[in-house]
């Protein structure tokens, strides 16, 4: 269970204070597949960063499985990200000089997975997202956008996280590939009961999720 309670986030800029999030309150049940939609600058990515403990709210609290993550120390937040959260980014953000396999193994290393079984686990994960063996040894630059996003999903799943936070996962893909990626995430949420929170512009994708939250000017307008 993930609960966001009256979370606000403000930034100080040369032009004045920007209120990215204002009193955002929501909750997501375990195994749920939810989407967050909204225009650019509405605060979607900021909310996702706060949920993933990449950023701290100005006020309010985020409780994940009975733990208030915004009050955790930096080291505990790192552990939380490594073990409980899987990130999927719009730009894939794979490490360019590592192969697909090594990118997945990197996440396994951070999650404390035993070194002896990392290779098998990474190979199995890449298979499960549809990356063939010859592609697994390629660097990201030699993979298509869709394949890179699949590797990114495999990396996010590496440590069997309870939550996957996906920021515009299909934003850089054509509609056909985007649909496949969405289906992959959808299947995961069903088969592994992983809670998935997707930030998207695509209303079609949002329409297929269990619930959709709409953000407007930093406030939740629709649940």
């Amino acid at each position: 269970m993930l609960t966001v309670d009256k979370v606000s986030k403000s930034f100080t800029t040369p032009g004045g204070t920007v209120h990215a999030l204002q009193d955002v309150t929501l909750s997501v049940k375990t195994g749920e597949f939810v989407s967050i939609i909204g225009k650019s600058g509405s605060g979607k990515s900021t909310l996702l960063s706060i949920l993933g403990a990449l950023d701290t709210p100005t006020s309010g609290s985020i409780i994940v499985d009975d733990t208030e993550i915004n009050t955790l120390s930096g080291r505990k937040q790192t552990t939380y990200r490594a073990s409980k959260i899987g990130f999927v980014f719009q730009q894939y953000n794979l490490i360019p000089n590592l192969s697909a396999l090594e990118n997945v193994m990197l996440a396994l290393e951070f999650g404390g997975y035993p070194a002896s079984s990392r290779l098998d686990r990474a190979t199995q994960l890449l298979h499960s997202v549809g990356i063939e063996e010859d592609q697994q040894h390629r660097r990201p630059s030699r993979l298509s956008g869709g394949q890179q996003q699949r590797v990114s999903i495999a990396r996010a799943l590496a440590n069997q996280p309870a939550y996957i936070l996906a920021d515009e996962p299909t934003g850089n893909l054509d509609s056909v590939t985007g649909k496949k990626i969405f289906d992959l995430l959808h299947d995961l949420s069903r088969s592994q009961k992983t809670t998935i929170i997707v930030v998207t512009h695509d209303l079609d994708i949002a329409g297929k999720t269990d619930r959709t939250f709409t953000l407007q000017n930093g406030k939740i307008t629709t649940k």
Partner: protein
Amino acid sequence: MNVVTRGIKNAVRSPIKTGAIVLMFAISIALILSMLVARGSVLRKVDEVKANAGTSITITPAGIVGDQGGGEALTTAQITIIKNTANVSSVTSTLTDRLGTTDTNLTSSLALGSFGARQQRFEAPNSSASESTGAAHPAPTSRINVTGTSDPNSIATNGGVLTISSGATIDGNSSDNIALVGATLATKNNLAVNSTFTAYGKTITVKGIYTTGNAFQDSGIIMPIATVQTLTAQPGAVNNVSAKVNSSDNVASTVATLKTTLAGKADITSQAEQAATSVSSLESIATLTLTGVIAAAGAGALIILLAMILVVRERRREIGVIKAIGGSNKKVIGQFIVEGLTMTVIGAVIGFALGIAVSGPMTTSLVSNSQNSASTTSPTRGGGPGAGGFEGGFARAQSQLTTNLTQVSATLTPQILMSAIGITLLIALLGSAIPAWLTARIRPAEVLRTE
């Protein structure tokens, strides 16, 4: 793959960029090593020259060198001042004279030759004519050098004990009419131990025959200084003093004191002083190379620092992603430090090889250039004919010193190698510390927000 493997892999991620950084760093390491080698070699030579320069001070009457020049010999009062000067541990006094045919029944064993004839041209029968024409007139014979000394060993050319081939040495403090005769002169005049000869109208007894290996010295006579002073009617006169100082550290101050107390009545020189002048150019090289080491180390640290700052800036997003997927600050910093160290180690290995190759020629070039420029500006001093034993030896030592100064061999000692490795590690540390700090400050949310 762990932090170390990733760091090493990242270091060779962009071969051209890494190659350029490594090459620049290698050049700075090569400079550091060759400068350290040059400095070490030069300092060793400086120490060696200073150690060999000894603790002797030579004091001669102002304007007099050996039997040449003019002025007044040193007096008993001045010798007392010298003996009483602080740090002077012993004093050897010498008075030299030359015996002509009217002074002795001995025949000189040295051929006069054209050089000797020219030196005596003023004493030739028609001296006015010879002066105007510069032509040499044959003199009756060459002179016999007489050295009155308080220590006969001061005549030894090897700086040690005078070699007595037969008989025994004499007491320099005696006032008897006794002498040591050079082997060549003794042979020429059929002199043996206990033979007698006439000099200054007195009968002198030969107590021993000496050899030095020096043709001039082996054709001379050594007597106690008091005897020569009496025979030549110069009571208390001394034309050369060799004073020993108790420590090489006190030579300079003792020379300064004597210059003050003898107030222009004497010319005072020391081998240490001459050596200090001679090695000043080497000391300049040592200073120059130290500056070079500091500059090259600074440049090396700057190269690694700037390279790593660029790398960190270039990979801000990647660092953010690593932190986002659970990478701790420790792991990220470790990875970048390994990356920096990898470049440092590769650069250091190439730099050391390059440094070892160029340190020899660089040291030789620095020393020979320095000595060439020094030799055109440094005055030289010779013993001159008739100069005392110490004076002649002094001139030879000076010549040897100048020759030795150019013979600096570049040697890579374990100490120098350890210093170079230490400096390299310091550079790596300095070059990695700021980038590591920058890495730790990167917040993943800020990086990912820029998407």
